[in-house]
C-alpha cells in the first residue's frame, strides 16, 4: 500500500515535471551587489517582476555571492535541476558574467542567453550594453549647475573600464556647464567586493565633501548607498545610479542616472516568449531611452526649471550628434 502510494506520488511528480518543462520559464542571475541593492540589480529584478505580473508564471533566479558560483549557476539554470525545469532563457546581469558565458553558451547551444553590460559573441547570446556616458553627461551637468563650490565628486565601485566610462561622461558633462569645475574621483576597490561596501563608500564620500565637493555621483551598486547616506548626513547632495534612487533620501538625492536594465530584462523575456528573440548586440542610449536622468516628486525642488531646460537641450544635442560624449570603452 505504502509502496503504491509512493509510486503514485512519484508519477504525479513526474507528470508535473514534464508539464512544467513545456511552459516558458525565464531565469535571471544577479551579480554580487545583491538583488536588493536599490540600484543595478534591483532594476533587473523590477523588470523580471513586471514580466511576471503581466504574463503570469514564475522565473528562476540566482544571486551569486562568490566567483565560483557564476559557472555553476548558469549551468544549473540552463540544465534544470530538481523541480526547476531547464530555463528557456538565462539572463545574466553584469559584465562579470562575460568570460563565463563565453564557455557556458557553447555548452548549451539550444538555450538562449542574455548578458547585460558586456558583449559575448555567440549565436545564442544577446548582449545588451548601455551608453552610460550619455546619461552620465547629463547628471554631470546637473551636478555642476547645482554645485555652489564648483567642486563635484564621483565615487565608483570596482575599478573597471565600464565605471571609467561613467566617470568620463560625468566629467565632460560638468565641464560642459563650467570649464573650471573640479571633479574628484575615487574608486572603492579592484575586486567585486567593491560593489557591496557602503562603509567604504561613505568614507570616500566624506573625504570628497571635506575637500570641498558638494555634489557626489555614486556609480557603485550597493556601495553607493553609503555615499547617499553620507551626503544626507553631511547635508550635501548626491546622485544615484541605475535605478531611480531619488526616493531614498528625498531632498538630498539631486537626481539619478537611470539605466533601464529593467526594460532590457523585460524585453528579453517578452521577446523570448513570443518568439521574436534575436541574438546580437543592442546598444541603448539617450535616443532609445535606455539611459536618462530621473525627475520625480522627490527632487522637483532641486532641479530648477532653468536646469531642466538646459538638460533637455543637451539631451537633444547628444541625440542629434551635436555634442559628442567620449566613450572610454570604445575601441
Amino acid at each position, binding site marked *: 500500500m505504502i509502496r503504491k502510494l509512493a509510486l503514485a506520488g512519484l508519477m504525479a511528480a513526474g507528470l508535473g515535471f514534464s508539464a512544467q518543462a513545456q511552459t516558458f520559464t525565464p531565469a535571471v542571475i544577479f551579480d554580487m551587489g*545583491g*538583488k*536588493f541593492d536599490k540600484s543595478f540589480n534591483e532594476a533587473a529584478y523590477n523588470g523580471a517582476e513586471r514580466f511576471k505580473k503581466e504574463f503570469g508564471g514564475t522565473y528562476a533566479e540566482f*544571486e551569486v*555571492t562568490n566567483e565560483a558560483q557564476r559557472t555553476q549557476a548558469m549551468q544549473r539554470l540552463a540544465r534544470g535541476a530538481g523541480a526547476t525545469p531547464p530555463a528557456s532563457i538565462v539572463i545574466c546581469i553584469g559584465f562579470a558574467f562575460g568570460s563565463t558565458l563565453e564557455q557556458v553558451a557553447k555548452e548549451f547551444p539550444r538555450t538562449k542567453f542574455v548578458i547585460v553590460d558586456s558583449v559575448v559573441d555567440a549565436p545564442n547570446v544577446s548582449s545588451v550594453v548601455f551608453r552610460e556616458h550619455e546619461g552620465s553627461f547629463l547628471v554631470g551637468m546637473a551636478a555642476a549647475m547645482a554645485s555652489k563650490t564648483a567642486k563635484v565628486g564621483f565615487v565608483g565601485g570596482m*575599478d573597471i573600464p565600464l565605471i571609467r566610462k561613467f566617470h568620463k561622461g560625468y566629467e565632460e558633462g560638468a565641464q560642459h556647464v563650467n570649464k573650471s569645475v573640479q571633479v*574628484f*574621483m*575615487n*574608486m572603492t*576597490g*579592484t575586486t567585486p*567586493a567593491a560593489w*557591496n*561596501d*557602503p*562603509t*567604504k563608500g*561613505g*568614507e*570616500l564620500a*566624506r*573625504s570628497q565633501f*571635506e575637500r570641498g565637493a558638494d555634489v557626489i555621483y555614486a556609480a557603485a551598486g*550597493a556601495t553607493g*548607498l*553609503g555615499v547617499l*547616506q553620507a551626503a544626507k*548626513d553631511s547635508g550635501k547632495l548626491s546622485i544615484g545610479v541605475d535605478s531611480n534612487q531619488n526616493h*531614498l533620501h528625498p531632498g538630498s538625492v539631486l537626481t539619478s542616472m537611470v539605466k533601464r536594465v529593467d526594460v532590457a530584462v523585460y524585453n528579453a523575456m517578452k521577446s523570448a516568449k513570443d518568439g521574436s528573440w534575436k541574438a546580437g548586440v543592442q546598444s541603448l542610449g539617450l535616443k532609445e531611452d535606455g539611459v536618462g536622468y530621473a525627475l520625480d516628486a522627490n527632487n522637483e525642488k532641486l532641479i530648477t526649471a532653468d536646469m531642466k531646460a538646459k538638460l533637455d537641450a543637451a539631451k537633444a544635442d547628444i541625440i542629434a550628434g551635436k555634442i559628442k560624449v567620449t566613450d572610454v570603452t570604445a575601441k
Partner: protein
Amino acid sequence: MEDAFLMIVTMASATLRVATPLVLAALAGLFAERSGIVDIGLEGKMLGAAFAAAATAAVTGSAWLGLLAAIAASTVLSMIHGFASITHNGNQVVSGMALNIMVAGLCPVLAQAWFRQSGQTPMLGQQARFGPIELPFAAAVAKVPVIGPLYAQVISGHNILVYIAAIAVPLVGFIVYRTSFGLRLRAVGENPEAVDTAGVSVSRLRYQALILAGILCGVAGAYLSTAHNAGFIRDMTAGKGYLALAALIFGKWKPVPTLLACLLFAFADAVQIRLQGVPVPGIGVIPVQLIQALPYILTVFLLAGFVGKSIAPRASGIPYLKER
C-alpha cells in the same frame, strides 16, 4: 598651510570613525585572551551583533534597543564559544572559526526570512541610528585657531558609541590592572593551576571574561550597522575582527598600546582613501592599486621591524584540565 591643516583635521576625524569598532573588538579580545581563551570569533560576534542591532532598530525604530539586542546576541555567541572551549575543552580556534562561519551564513538567512530584502535589513531612518553629538562649546571655540577646529571637528561631532569606545580603554585598563578581578583574570591566563590552587574557579573566571568580551563586541557591531552605516549588509564586518586581533597582538595584549595599534590601522585606511587620485608633491599621482595596498604594506612593515617581541598570555589557547 591652511589646506594641510584642514587635511590633518579631517583625517584625524576619519581615523576616529574607522578605529572605533576596531578598538571595541580588540578590547573584547583582550579580556578573552588575557583569561586564556583565544578569541578568533571576534569577527562573527561583531557581525551577529551588527545584524541584531539593525534588525531590532528596523523593527522598533530605536537605536538603543538595537544596542541592547546587539549586546545580547554577541554575549550569547560568546557563551557558545565558552561552552565549547571551557566546559568541553574544545579547540578554541576551531570553535571561534565555527562561530564566524555560522554567523556569516545565519545572518543573511534570517534577514531574508524576516525582511525579504535578500539578506539585508531595511535602511534605517535618522531616529533609528546613533546621530552625531555636539560637545559643549564646540561652536563657540570653532573659531579659535588650531585648537578650535581640533576640538570642533575631531573631538566633537561623533556619535555616542565613539565616546563609549574612548572611555572603554581606560576602563578596561583599570579593570585589568587595578581590581582583584583583573588580577585573577591575568593570573588565569598565565597560570591557571595557581589560580585553581588558590581556590578560585578557572572556568568561572573565563566565562566572566567572555561575557565582557561579548558586551564589547556587541557595542562594536551596533556601531557598524546603526551608527557608521544605516542597516545590515552581508559580510559588513569585512575582516575587522581579524584586524582587531592583529592590533591586539601589536599592542602586546595591553589596552593603551592596543588602542594605538587600532588608531594606526584606521589612520592607514584614512590616508589610503584621501591619497587616491590626489597628486603627491614631487611624485605625482600614485596608482590606486598601490595606495589600496598601503594598510597591508604598513602592517607587514611594522610586524617585521617595529613591534619587537610580542608574547601571548602563557595559557592562552590551552583548555584547563584539572589534574587529580
